[in-house]
């Protein structure tokens, strides 16, 4: 019990350290950039009174160490500055958009990972066959498509030529009833999720395939064969569990990037998520918001890495032994 608590504690501590590091970087960006740092935080369009207020609140007249402390303190309390474009606190603006992005990305990643792992496992068992080559070729093709291009193509085909799906948005106005709402959102998700999963899938497929090829030549696979297990079971039970570790690790790191990674896709599908938020923040030079998104990305990355660690410990007892003891 104690060891598990220590483990969680250590990981959280590591996550916090990363977040603090990111906060430090943003602090220095704010403070070392030419011009008045208060303007950075308040936004260029802010009124002089507001800039004064910010100057006071963040102590821009105080020595730098003190300012750093004040800044971190503000961050910790959830005061991430004020978005000039949205005329709302940064954190609030971000939290409003985060669920939409998470919904889109989690769905896309889940599909990409599941399909990628499945296809990776299947192709690895027939490595260098025609089937393997075909799957690799197709997935690589999707991988090399720019996201915006794929997104536009899908819109062109599936909402303009064949009007099966909407061109964008998350939910139509005026939908009543919970079930209807859910269905409507799913309907809107089809095209953006397809775009993203097709692109993400290739890396999972290739990683799984490569690791599986190694695993499949391990000694314990010979034991499984000699036991008389059917091929399917050997691949999906004995081998895949071993191959899962690097895949989980990759998903853990990738997940953090997805927040900002889906910028183009979100914009094209006018998905009300972090991606379009970031675009707006940059377009309108809403620095507090840009920095806030930066910090939020760090937080999500650290947390997803933490989840990945726990998952890995679950899959591999040796990792569990190392982590938890």
């Amino acid at each position, binding site marked *: 019990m104690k060891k598990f608590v220590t483990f969680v504690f250590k990981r959280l501590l590591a996550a916090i350290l990363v977040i603090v590091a990111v906060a430090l970087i943003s602090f220095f960006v704010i403070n070392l950039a030419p011009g008045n740092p208060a303007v950075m935080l308040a936004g260029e369009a802010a009124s002089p009174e507001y800039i004064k207020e910010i100057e006071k609140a963040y102590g821009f007249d105080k020595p730098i160490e003190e300012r750093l402390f004040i800044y971190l303190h503000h961050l910790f309390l959830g005061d991430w500055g004020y978005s000039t474009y949205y005329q709302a606190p940064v954190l609030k603006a971000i939290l409003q958009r985060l669920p939409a992005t998470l919904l889109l990305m989690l769905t896309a990643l889940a599909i990409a990972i599941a399909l990628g792992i499945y296809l990776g496992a299947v192709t690895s068992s027939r490595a260098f066959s025609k089937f393997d080559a075909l799957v690799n070729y197709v997935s690589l093709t999707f991988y090399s498509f720019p996201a915006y291009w794929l997104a536009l193509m899908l819109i062109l085909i599936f909402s303009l030529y064949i009007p099966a799906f909407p061109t964008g948005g998350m939910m139509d106005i005026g939908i009543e009833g919970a079930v209807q709402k859910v269905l409507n959102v799913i309907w809107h998700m089809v095209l953006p999720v397809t775009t993203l999963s097709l692109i993400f899938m290739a890396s999972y497929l290739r990683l799984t395939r490569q690791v599986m090829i190694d695993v499949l*030549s*391990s*000694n*314990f696979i*010979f*034991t*499984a*064969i*000699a*036991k*008389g*297990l*059917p*091929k399917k079971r050997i691949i999906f039970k*004995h081998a895949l*569990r*071993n191959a899962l570790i690097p895949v989980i690790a990759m998903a853990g790191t990738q997940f953090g990037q997805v927040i900002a990674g889906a910028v183009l896709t979100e914009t094209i599908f006018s998905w009300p998520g972090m991606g379009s938020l970031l675009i707006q923040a940059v377009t309108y030079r809403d620095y507090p918001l840009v920095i806030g998104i930066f910090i939020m990305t760090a937080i999500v990355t650290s947390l997803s890495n933490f989840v990945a660690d726990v998952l890995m410990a679950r*899959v*591999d*007892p*040796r990792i569990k*032994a190392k982590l938890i003891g």
Partner: protein
Amino acid sequence: MSDPILRIENLSLSYLVGDTKFRALKSVSMSVPRGSVVALVGESGSGKTTLIRSIMRVLPKQAVIEEGKIYFEGKDLLSLNEEDMLKIRGKKISMVFQDPISHLNPVMSVKEQLIESIELHRGLKGKEAENEALRLLSLMRLKDPQRVLNLFPHQLSGGMAQRVLIAMALASNPSLLIADEPTSALDPTVQIRILSLLKEIHENENLTILLITHDLSVVAYIADFVYVIYGGRIMEYGDVHRIFGRPLHPYTKDLLLSLSGRSFSEPKKSGTLLEDACPFAPRCPQAIEACFKQFPKYVNLNGGVVACHSVNVGRDDT
């Protein structure tokens, strides 16, 4: 003797190493009578593991079978399709591999791996399967089988892992057990128990055993019949008492001599040897010119079979 349960004919096998070929088995023939215990002995690197892996068709990718047939109960295993092979692997022929820990799946508990075999081949489920697993582990003289059941491979000691592998192989009540150094990681007190157990199953349930070992004491304890392999070739074979009492081949003699603590012929630098030469020739105290040119024919002699020019010469003399 009854019909052989397993018969290997002229098996030749090479490993591809880079762009060269390494011939690991050269025209190996052997026959395992039903209900017998046959031992395959030979030096490290002589091709023992390779030979038995080809029986189960669990060879690494680099291995190429160039020639030969392997008959199990009359069927040629090398030409069976995967589906028919599934009916034999694990069910009729079980295998215990060398290097026990690496042959257990690192992310699956002993329980999962052992019960899998029991469920697959014995049709037991749930609690019944678990009880059978516990029974097998106690047969292996593992203290606290319940604990061992819950361990993962990296938590086992070398000898514990080896016994788990043996338990797994016996789980299906096979008719042929192929065991590669099954007691190499066991201390004498456990080794003798496991060997007696195998003997018991062999006698009570007519289990045929093909045993690979470097340990001649193990051979003496359990085997009826012995094949001696060197450099990928069978040098000599015969009844165990005959092999120990009147060895014919200089290599077999060497092996037995070194047991009694007497010195043995140091391996000389091998150099390159002709493909057809006797692989033992460079080390052989009795080597003659012919040995470096041509591998001798097998001859029946004193109730054994041996391939050696000098033995042939000796016979001609008498």
